[in-house]
Each structure stands twice: as C-alpha cells, then as structure tokens.
C-alpha cells in the first residue's frame, strides 16, 4: 500500500539530488538542469498531497510551477546565450565580475 509518506519521501530524495546538483556543478547549463529537478520534486509532493487530502489546490499549484519553469527557461537560456557570446564560457566562476 502506497501512502502519502512514500510520495513525500520520494519527493525529498529527488529534491536533495537537485540540491547536490546545484551545489556541485560549476557549469551554468547543469545548474539549470538541477533547478528543473528541484521544481519537479516539488510538483510530485504537491500532487501527492492533493490526492490524499482530496483537495485540487495542490494540482493547480504544480500547474503554475510548470508555467513558471517554462518562462524561467526562456529568460534564463536567453541570458546564458548572451553571456556565452560575450565571454566565451558558461562556467560559473566567470561570473565574478565584482572582484576588486
């Protein structure tokens, strides 16, 4: 029998995988991928809570999260392409512009 806790633990595991990715990767493209993992983990949690408590608000919230992820990708990838054209690298360390 699969309970709500199963889904929440799965969501937590996926979220921590995403956090490890955000902390570990230095490539900006990989950072974007890890952000997608974070958003998806939260989506699973919302959908599970929405089913087990009989309330559809969770699904609506994951719907909005998907919309936000879509616009984040459009803007973020545009900025990334712009940065790559200017500096020739997408390494996170190249963004230290305020270094004295």
């Amino acid at each position, binding site marked *: *029998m*699969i309970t*709500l806790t*199963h*889904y*929440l*633990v*799965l*969501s*937590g595991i*996926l*979220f*921590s995988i995403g*956090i*490890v*990715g955000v*902390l*570990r990767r*230095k*490539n900006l*493209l*990989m950072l*974007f*991928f*890890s952000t*997608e*993992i974070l958003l*998806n983990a939260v*989506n*699973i949690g919302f*959908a*599970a*809570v*929405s089913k087990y*408590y*009989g*309330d*559809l*608000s969770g*699904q*609506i919230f*994951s*719907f*909005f999260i*998907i*919309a*936000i*992820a*879509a*616009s*984040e*990708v*459009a*803007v973020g*990838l*545009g900025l*990334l*392409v*712009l940065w790559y054209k200017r500096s020739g690298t997408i390494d996170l*360390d190249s963004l230290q512009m305020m270094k004295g």
Partner: protein
Amino acid sequence: MFEAIAFYMFSILVIGMFLIVVFSKNALYSMSALAGGMIFISGFFFLLDADFLGVVQIIVYTGAIMAVYAFGMMFFDTTRDVKENIRFKKIIYTLSTLSAIFVIFILLAPVYSGKIEALYPSIQGVGNIQMIGLILFTKYLVPFELAAIMLLAAMISGIVLVKIKMEETPTDIEVAKGEK
C-alpha cells in the same frame, strides 16, 4: 498491488535518471537523461489521478522545455566533456546532507501534525480535468491570467535576448556575404 509495483519502478527509474543528470560529465547525456526523467515523473501524476497534470508534464516539460534546451545547446560546444574545477568538496557534501535532512523534516512535519484539512474539497463523480477547469476558472482565475502575462513577457524577452539584429534581414546578410 499494481500501484506499489508501478510506484517503485518509476521511483527507481526517476532517481537513476536524475542521478545521471547530476553526475554526468557530458551535457548531452545529462539533457537526454533529464528528458527521460520528466516522462517517468508524469507516470507518478497518472498514478495520483492527476491526469491533466501528467499530460501537461509530458507536453510542456518534455515537449517544450527540453526542446528549448536542445535548441539552446546548439550555441554551446557540447561534444566536449564539461570541465569543472571543484574545490571545497567536504563543505559541499556536508551542506547538501544537512539540507537534505532539513527538507525531509519539513516534508514530514505536516503529515505527523494531522491538522491539514481540504480547503476546497473535490466533488465526487466529477472527472479530474473537469474539476481542474472548474477550480482554475473560478478560484484561481487571477493567478491564471497573471501566469499568461508572465509567459508573454518571458517569450518577448527570450526573443529580444537571442535575436540577431532585426534591421538586417537574412537576405541582406547573404547579399553582404556574396559581395565579399
């Protein structure tokens, strides 16, 4: 029974795919693994009776977002392995472990408190997609319209950021190349 089998199968697949995304050295491999993981996640939504969300997950995430990533990766050199100099490994792993434990506590807290009540209980005998339509266009109408405006702004900014100069049409560029 089948629910349990499906749950464990999909969890193993999704966790494996996302581990490949996080630990792979090649950007192309990790993008493909991410697309696969997105499709497997939609399996969870179908298991959770969230049919509409599962379909949206496949269409928007795998169809639109991963396609945008694939187009964006044409600008970068993705055939080479990603080179990263990682310092402070111990600090990173300690921080990730700590934050993972905190996240699990945050997630488990409402389950054991038992004080959650359905704010808008779903009506029996109404399908999932119909119910989503009912709620989305009554209680969440303003956020829905705001999301539409946000998507429009994101689309315009995406075009403006990546565009070549608008006054130079492609035929002009070809003519200029021919004159050289």
